[in-house]
């Protein structure tokens, strides 16, 4: 009788460990949420492409944030709201009703014959 109880307790212990092991390791590993970093990368590459197409510097020179925002349509996910700022060192972030605000900075030294450093900031929120 004593032997049977001992065997029963061993069986219960093994079953407990087995069930927990299966529960913990059989659930699929969820990919971490890196959405904001991926969007930041997309935004940065978008500005880089605009620069390579010789558009960004003229927009910065004329302080044309609307043109930059128009060029970003279709490049950033539609679920993301964004606002472009052109400024020097001190920039003011937009007042938005969201706890998830992130941004990318792209520095521009100026254009030929016109040294005038500025940064283009895309503020994004969702």
């Amino acid at each position, binding site marked *: 009788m004593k032997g049977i*109880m*001992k065997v029963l*307790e*061993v069986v*219960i*212990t*093994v079953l*407990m*460990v087995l069930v*927990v*092991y299966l529960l*913990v*390791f059989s659930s699929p*590993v969820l990919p*971490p949420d*890196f959405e904001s*970093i*991926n969007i*930041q*990368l997309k935004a*940065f590459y978008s500005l*880089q492409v605009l620069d390579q197409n010789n558009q960004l510097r003229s927009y910065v020179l004329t302080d044309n944030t609307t043109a930059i925002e128009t060029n970003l349509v279709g490049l950033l996910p539609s679920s993301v709201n964004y606002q472009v700022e052109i400024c*020097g*060192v*001190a920039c003011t972030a937009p007042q938005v009703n969201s706890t998830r605000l992130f941004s990318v*900075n*792209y*520095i*521009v*030294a*100026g*254009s*030929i*014959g*016109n*040294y005038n*450093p500025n*940064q283009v900031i895309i503020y994004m929120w969702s």
Partner: protein
Amino acid sequence: MMKGQMFIIAGLIVIVAIVGLKSILSLQKIVENQRHLVSGFNGLEFNNVRNEMVRTLQISYNDSANMTNNLNDFDSFARDTLNTKSVDFNSLLVEVFYPTLQASTNTQVNVTVYNSLGTDLTSLNLSFNGTSNTFSLKNRYALRTVFTINTAVSNNQTLALNYTTSSTSQSENFAVPLNLGASYFIAFFDIRYISNEGQQSDKFTTTLQLN
């Protein structure tokens, strides 16, 4: 009775260990992935600053008198901008300029060193064309010195730079082309981008013939 309980207790310990192991493995993977992505993003920012430093010289091409000022100013701009994002940007810039070089005529070679390494240079030695000068240079200050050259033929000279800070000693050599009938601006960059995710750095030279 006690022996039976021991099996259950041992089982519970194993379960705790399994759950703990699982959470450590997952957390480690997340942190590694995030660090990798953020580090890649920092690399893009670093290259942006690096490319714009070279571009500062290109866009100042027709204003050679202000090349040095513009480059030093851009360095400050980049550092102040990155500081707002908790990134330290440190640099040492050495700029060499000489006007059109005539054969067998004394010509002044202007050398400017801009120290933005985040620390004072307790000793800074510059050697060029057989002449050597020693200075000290505070952080975020620039010094300008002049060397005189007189050559009958075009050739390359080496500018040797040795500096000491409170924690390190460093030597750099770079070639200065002395071409008759030409004016040159040569800039040596030692730039460092330091964030919570790591450090990116580069040393490079840009040579511009001005005429």
